[in-house]
């Protein structure tokens, strides 16, 4: 074919071989490029497509504020305060070490910690999520950091909303706290709430009302997609037609109006710290209006929820978790205790309804009660002599209730206690509520595999043994006694309102049942007259000469209640009357006081539980009295004036 005039035959052959070599080289080289294109576009195409989507579209989030939490008079309890936060975008940071060193003198964070934090987030969340370096910047820090931004485009100052708890430690377990959502939680929440968007960086409720009402309080972050160039700058035209992405407006969270009264809430905490109180103030208080509205909710010791809003230090966190007094536990519902003598009115009502005693039946207490080989002591070594049921409540006689309980048997006690929803969760959904326990023969067989013994009935009849209740359950039950058998559902959120104060939903008091009417399931009921009998006994706890809380009267205002002192461990008969204050703290009795006021036309019910306070009178009754006073002062100035006036007249 080829015809080089000057070439020899051999050279032509050589050339043919060269051409073959060149064909092969070209084919191999092009083949390599085809293979590379296949690899990039077909094999990695999907992944690179996703990358390129993120690359050009920068998502800007328009933060939606979380709803506020207000008290019943619309006073802000949990607020949003504007704050500034320093962030670093790994995507736009070329020299992280240098940046970390540059900001170190301003925000006093170790450069190596900053580098570590950014790299960690980069690994976990990719380079596009800005990493929060420091929250709660002060104005000086903001200005100094803003100056650095010129040299470090990765550095950013973002406006944030800092959750602020006005009552700080008071009611912290009730209101809860917020934290940034974790990756794990995003998955969990997405499954749980399909309609609500949870994204990295979102602030979510982690406890209390903040957690329970998360989906109401949480706003929906708005999103806008802007097209950015390689340097993160906005391009001339945003939302250009060939990407067709509509901005999404932010939807603010809804606010909650609680039934809580800030004044009563503050008064309750103050009342818990009375001077005559023994030992540390560990325990809980719940103040409920007679229709179930909760006015105050205290659990001590507590923590300052504001510490969580700005990112709690791991040191403080572990301190809170490991504190033996459990400040993170909402003791109103999250811990149950033996109700002790505060259980007696329930047993009294059961005994009356079952006609084991009538209001006039006298029972003799010699100071102890013997059943089989067991000897059970009364509240006084000498006993109370011949007493009827109202006197038994007034004096908190154990022997009366040993006898009554023994005759009733545990199953009948269980039957009547259940009418008051004792040992049942309240459906308030605040915190991880425990149910407590009202034992029965069937329960013991099932749970422990053992047969119930009469001796256990005797112990459980005075609220010891297996019986466990929460403070909220006791308040709910006593409120039912005060209301002659009408059981109200406790509730804490009155209204949900939007940002324009428009009411979205409102919650009305709810009656769970009327105990004077036979129960649908068990058929059990208690006649109204028996409530009157028990109420009288509870009134005499204050008014009677032998009343266990007679020292805590309010002049001119009759109140009703019951003390409860529960042993935290068994003592020998020799030691049982030993002075409580002489025992080591953790062996001291818990003190309960549950009651309502005023005696006639009751308005509020209060349960006070004071751990290791030695007795109900010492630990609870005084607190009860102070809270009632605070209530009267605000809501019943007429009664309050009466009490003050009489007092003044007396001195």
């Amino acid at each position, binding site marked *: 074919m080829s015809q080089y005039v000057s070439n020899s035959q051999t050279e032509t052959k050589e050339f043919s071989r060269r051409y073959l070599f060149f064909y092969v080289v070209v084919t191999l080289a092009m083949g390599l490029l085809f293979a590379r294109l296949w690899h990039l576009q*077909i094999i990695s195409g999907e992944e690179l497509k996703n990358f390129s989507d993120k690359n050009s579209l920068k998502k800007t989030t328009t933060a939606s504020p979380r709803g506020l939490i207000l008290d019943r008079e619309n006073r802000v309890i949990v607020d949003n305060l504007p704050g500034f936060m320093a962030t670093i975008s790994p995507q736009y940071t070329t020299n992280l070490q240098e940046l970390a060193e540059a900001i170190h003198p301003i925000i006093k964070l170790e450069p190596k910690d900053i580098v570590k934090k950014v790299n960690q987030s980069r690994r976990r969340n990719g380079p596009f999520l800005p990493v929060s370096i420091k929250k709660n910047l002060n104005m000086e820090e903001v200005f100094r950091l803003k100056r650095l931004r010129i040299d470090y485009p990765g550095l950013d100052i973002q406006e944030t909303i800092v959750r602020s708890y006005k009552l700080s430690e008071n009611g912290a377990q009730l209101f809860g706290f917020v934290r940034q959502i974790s990756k794990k939680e995003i998955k969990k929440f997405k499954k749980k709430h399909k309609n609500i968007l949870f994204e990295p960086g979102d602030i979510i409720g982690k406890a209390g009302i903040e957690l329970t009402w998360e989906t109401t309080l949480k706003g929906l972050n708005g999103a806008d997609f802007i097209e950015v160039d390689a340097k993160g700058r906005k391009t001339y035209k945003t939302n250009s037609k060939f990407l067709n992405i509509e901005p999404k407006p932010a939807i603010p969270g809804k606010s909650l109006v609680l039934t809580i009264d800030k004044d009563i809430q503050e008064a309750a905490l103050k009342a818990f710290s009375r001077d005559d109180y023994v030992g540390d103030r560990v325990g809980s208080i719940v103040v409920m209006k007679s229709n179930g509205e909760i006015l105050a909710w205290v659990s001590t010791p507590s923590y300052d929820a504001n510490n969580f809003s700005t990112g709690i230090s791991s040191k403080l966190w572990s301190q809170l978790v490991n504190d033996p007094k459990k400040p993170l536990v909402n003791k109103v519902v999250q811990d149950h205790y033996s109700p002790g003598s505060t259980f007696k009115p329930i047993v009294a009502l059961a005994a009356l309804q079952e006609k084991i005693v009538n209001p006039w039946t006298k029972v003799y207490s010699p100071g102890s009660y013997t059943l089989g080989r067991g000897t059970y002591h009364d509240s006084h070594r000498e006993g109370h002599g011949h007493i009827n049921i109202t006197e038994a409540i007034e004096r908190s006689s154990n022997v009366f209730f040993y006898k009554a309980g023994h005759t009733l048997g545990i199953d009948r006690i269980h039957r009547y206690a259940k009418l008051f929803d004792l040992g049942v969760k309240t459906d308030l959904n605040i915190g991880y509520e425990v149910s407590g326990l009202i034992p029965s023969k069937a329960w013991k067989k099932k749970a422990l595999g053992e047969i119930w013994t009469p001796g256990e009935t005797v112990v459980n009849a005075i609220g010891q043994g297996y019986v466990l209740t929460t403070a909220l359950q006791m308040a709910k039950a006593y409120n039912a006694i005060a209301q002659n058998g009408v059981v109200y559902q406790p509730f804490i959120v009155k209204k949900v309102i939007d940002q324009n104060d428009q009411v979205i939903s409102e919650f009305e008091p709810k009656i769970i049942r009327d105990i004077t009417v036979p129960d649908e399931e068990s058929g059990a009921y208690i006649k109204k007259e028996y409530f009157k009998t028990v109420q009288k006994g509870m009134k005499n706890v204050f008014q009677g000469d032998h009343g266990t809380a007679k020292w805590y009267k309010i002049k001119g205002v009759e109140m009703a209640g019951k003390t409860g002192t529960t042993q935290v461990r068994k003592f020998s008969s020799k030691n049982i009357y030993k002075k409580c204050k002489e025992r080591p703290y953790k062996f001291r009795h818990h003190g309960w006081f549950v009651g309502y006021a005023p005696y006639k036309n009751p308005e509020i019910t209060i349960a006070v539980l004071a751990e290791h306070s030695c007795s109900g009178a010492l630990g609870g009754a005084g607190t009860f009295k102070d809270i009632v006073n605070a209530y009267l002062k605000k809501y019943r100035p007429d009664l309050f004036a009466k009490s003050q006036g009489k007092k003044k007249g007396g001195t």
Partner: protein
Amino acid sequence: MQNYSSLQNSKRFSRFNFKFAFIIFALLFIGLINLFSATHGVSLGHNTRLFWLQLIWMSAGWILFLIVTFIDYDLFKRLAYAFYGFNIIALIMVMLVGKTVLGAQRWLDLGFFRWQPSETAKISVALVLAKIFSEKSYPNGMGVKDLLWPGVITLIPFILTVRQPDLGTSLLIIGIAVSMVLFIKVKWSIIIVLLLGGVLATPLVWNFGLKKYQQDRVMIFLNPGRDPRGRGYNSIQSKVAVGSGRLLGKGFRKGTQSQLEFIPERHSDFIYSVLSEEHGFIGSVFTLGLFCILFFTSLRISYEARDKFGALVTIGILSFIFFHTFINVGMVTGILPIVGMPLPLLSYGGSSLLTVMLGLGIISSVSYNKYLF
């Protein structure tokens, strides 16, 4: 006479390699469409004039191509040294008075046109080497003596372009020379010595011959993820652009990577990434396939050439265009380091386009003049 003339005329047309010209036309057309997309992005309204300028260069390119086609390439053989000498003077002038663009001195401003002598140097070297090799016969392969003069011819423009600095072009000149020498036949001992020399010289060249940015380019090629916002950025963004096109591409003017300036130099060196992103695997392979046909056609033209010079000059120019294509696509797809090397016929740029059209014109001329009568 009348008859003979008409025969001559019909022969004139049949001798013109339409297939070769059509492939060039197709590639230029694809390039034009693609350049329109690259220069009519959302964020740079002012750069649309590049498209129109390219259209002018293309017209000029075609005229050059056709003129050269119909000239007997023997003229180029005779004028080879003149071209070469003129080119070397231009390269020296670039060093003295050249325009500095992007940190490198590469252009001579001729008023209407900024000439890049390093581009035409590739053709000049191919012409001179073809002339030298075609005038001698090497039945036993080239020895050291035979390579001395061609070596000098190659090294002068090499050194001048390295100094600009334009590492890509200077290595390409070496590549053209090596291809031609391999084509002629060279003694095995020399290949081995050169390979060994190259291996030993690498660390020396690395430390003393390369500037910092050149070293960086190689380092980043080896590990582009090391500094994605910095120097390896181009490579990553380009790969993302190519890959994100997937099978069918994002569509004309819908490539987000290129439209939103993630790709630097997307109208010139990274034009192929625009094509790949917007037209996907199908479009990329189709275009690369056209290049393949162009290369195979050129090899055939070389094989069918009437003389050794024609065959050799075709090989030289082919290797020039082939290396450009391979290195550019390799760079855009991330298998080669980033070097400033345009994609023939597709990248924007007058110098590059006219040089390529001149080279292809010479090949076309070799094809046109393959018959002695």
